[in-house]
């Protein structure tokens, strides 16, 4: 228990140290990518919970991310001024769900408040995940992978093909999201440091929730389902229900990540829903060691950061594909674990002894 909080505390210190380092070295522009990394990591830890702990794969999590982001973007940018008279819009306005603001050219905009949009987006994703998860989670292994992959592709084609969602351009001009008075998630220059801390603060909160869950009765039950589903069922664990709940939970993490990143970037495009994004998230969970929230977060931090900095150039997607293949072949338990050093040692020993034998 205490070691868990010590780890989280240490992680928070590292986050602060990184910010101070960028301050000293006058490289605060890195904070933009680091902030985006935090939001992607939020999705990754939710997926880690699903894949690593409950043993259920999803190749459609970019879909949930995109649904959250797109709904929030649409509701906070779609001008309702012309529909003011409609009873539903009037009702929304009465409950304070709408806000008026000026667009770039001084015209009046009437849109949903980001909080209202956020709640609608999260609820929609949870409902979609529940409806999809029910039938899909009856499948196992690669059948489940294919079904979730299909879901991801459908979402991608929908956002790409819907002109109301900006088709290939996506939605831009998404306003900042004022979480609390004075705390606004947006990419505009002034709040860069604040946004960095908000993003990582939200991630650390999410991690704390999941780490608590893992060490609870439910976490144990999920590991049991992963290990031997029939035995878990025989011990009174409602396996179908638990799998569905953890699927919905991880979709919720993806939705929140999508919403917050969309407000931070001020835009969202169809590439966020692409299958390669889903593969990337799975690759990060795999290289982090599957059953390790810490492994997933540290790998997400490193890989997403370099990817966002453009270090992989045009090979971006290929890099993640290659990583996934290499990990599955040579280190199926991931890289972030003590055993890796031992494995490497024995690997080199084998090579050197072979050479000696020659």
């Amino acid at each position, binding site marked *: 228990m205490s070691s868990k909080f010590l780890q989280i505390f240490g992680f928070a210190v590292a986050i602060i140290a990184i910010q101070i380092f960028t301050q000293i070295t006058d490289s605060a522009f890195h904070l933009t990518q680091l902030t985006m990394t935090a939001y992607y990591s939020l999705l990754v830890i939710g997926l880690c919970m699903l894949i690593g702990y409950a043993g259920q794969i999803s190749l459609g999590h970019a879909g949930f991310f995109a649904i959250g982001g797109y709904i929030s973007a649409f509701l906070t940018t779609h001008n309702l001024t012309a529909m003011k008279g409609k009873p539903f819009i009037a009702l929304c306005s009465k409950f304070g769900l709408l806000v008026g603001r000026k667009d770039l050219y001084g015209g009046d905009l009437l849109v949903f408040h980001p909080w209202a949009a956020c709640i609608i987006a999260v609820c929609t994703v949870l409902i979609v995940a529940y409806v999809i998860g029910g039938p899909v989670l009856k499948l196992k292994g690669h059948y489940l992978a294919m079904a979730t992959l299909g879901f991801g592709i459908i979402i991608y084609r929908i956002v790409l093909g819907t002109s109301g969602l900006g088709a290939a351009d996506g939605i831009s001009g998404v306003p900042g999201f004022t979480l609390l008075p004075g705390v606004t998630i947006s990419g505009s220059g002034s709040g860069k440091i604040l946004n960095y801390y908000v993003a990582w603060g939200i991630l650390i909160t999410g991690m704390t929730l999941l780490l608590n869950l893992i060490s609870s009765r439910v976490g144990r039950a999920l590991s049991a389902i992963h290990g031997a589903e029939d035995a878990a069922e*025989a*011990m009174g664990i409602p396996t179908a229900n638990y799998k569905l709940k953890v699927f919905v939970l991880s979709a919720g993490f993806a939705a929140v990540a999508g919403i917050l990143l969309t407000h931070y970037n001020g835009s969202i495009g169809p590439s966020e829903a692409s299958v390669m994004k889903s593969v990337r998230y799975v690759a990060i969970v795999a290289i982090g060691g599957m059953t390790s929230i810490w492994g997933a977060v540290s790998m997400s931090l490193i890989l997403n950061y370099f990817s966002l900095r453009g270090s992989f150039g045009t090979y971006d997607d290929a890099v993640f594909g290659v990583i996934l293949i290499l990990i599955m072949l040579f280190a199926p338990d991931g890289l972030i674990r003590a055993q890796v050093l031992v494995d490497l040692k024995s690997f080199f020993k084998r090579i050197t002894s072979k050479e000696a034998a020659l």
Partner: protein
Amino acid sequence: MTTLLSVVNLSKRFGGLQAVNEVSFTVTAGSIKALIGPNGAGKTTLFNLISGVISPDSGVINFSDHQVQGLRPHQVASKGMARTFQHIRLFPKMSVLENIMIGRHIHSRAGFVAGMLSIPHTWSEEKKIREKAHEIMAFLDLESLADVEATSLSYGQQRNVELGRALACEPKLLLLDEPAAGLNMSETTELGALISRIRDTGITVLIVEHDMGLVMDISDEILVLSYGKKIADDVPLAVQSNSEVINVYLGEDDA
């Protein structure tokens, strides 16, 4: 003597095979009942029907005043029925302690939200789960193995862990599917003593077993199946001298 489990006219067909055919029997609370029969007699099918892994085509299963036929296994388990498996099914990558703690699932409540928020109620519940698991490990002499990965243990020890996991459910009825398979003679004798001790704590036991020595030793009653049909249901001595049972096991006299 109260009846804990009563099975009435239970049938199950797999394609052309009538695996269980109109079987009826009762298990008295606080007794040990054995289920025997040649290979393919339908013993495991009957076990799976009772524990909810498969649904019967017809018939009624009454378990402590609930009709449980057609319920999912976890629903049956929550009514107070725990089982072990013919091929040991422990949870890999989990310690002996954690495996046994899983057995406390039906006696604890914390859900997803309580687990994520780690509210004080869940701490005290977790403490109780741990205490009970240690109690079970003490009963089975597994204390020294608490933190060892369960699937790394020897076969006999794994059997005991699986038994401990079932006992942690504090079941009314314990279903044991061939618990002596793969054990040597002295281990089998120990197992027999252990099953009797479990019965003495008030748990009713229904056991599928091939080891006749063990079955005759510990059972209060024996149910004999052949080709899915019940051919005998009596005390051990009577079953031993039952001509039909002898025929099934040793073949007809004039054969």
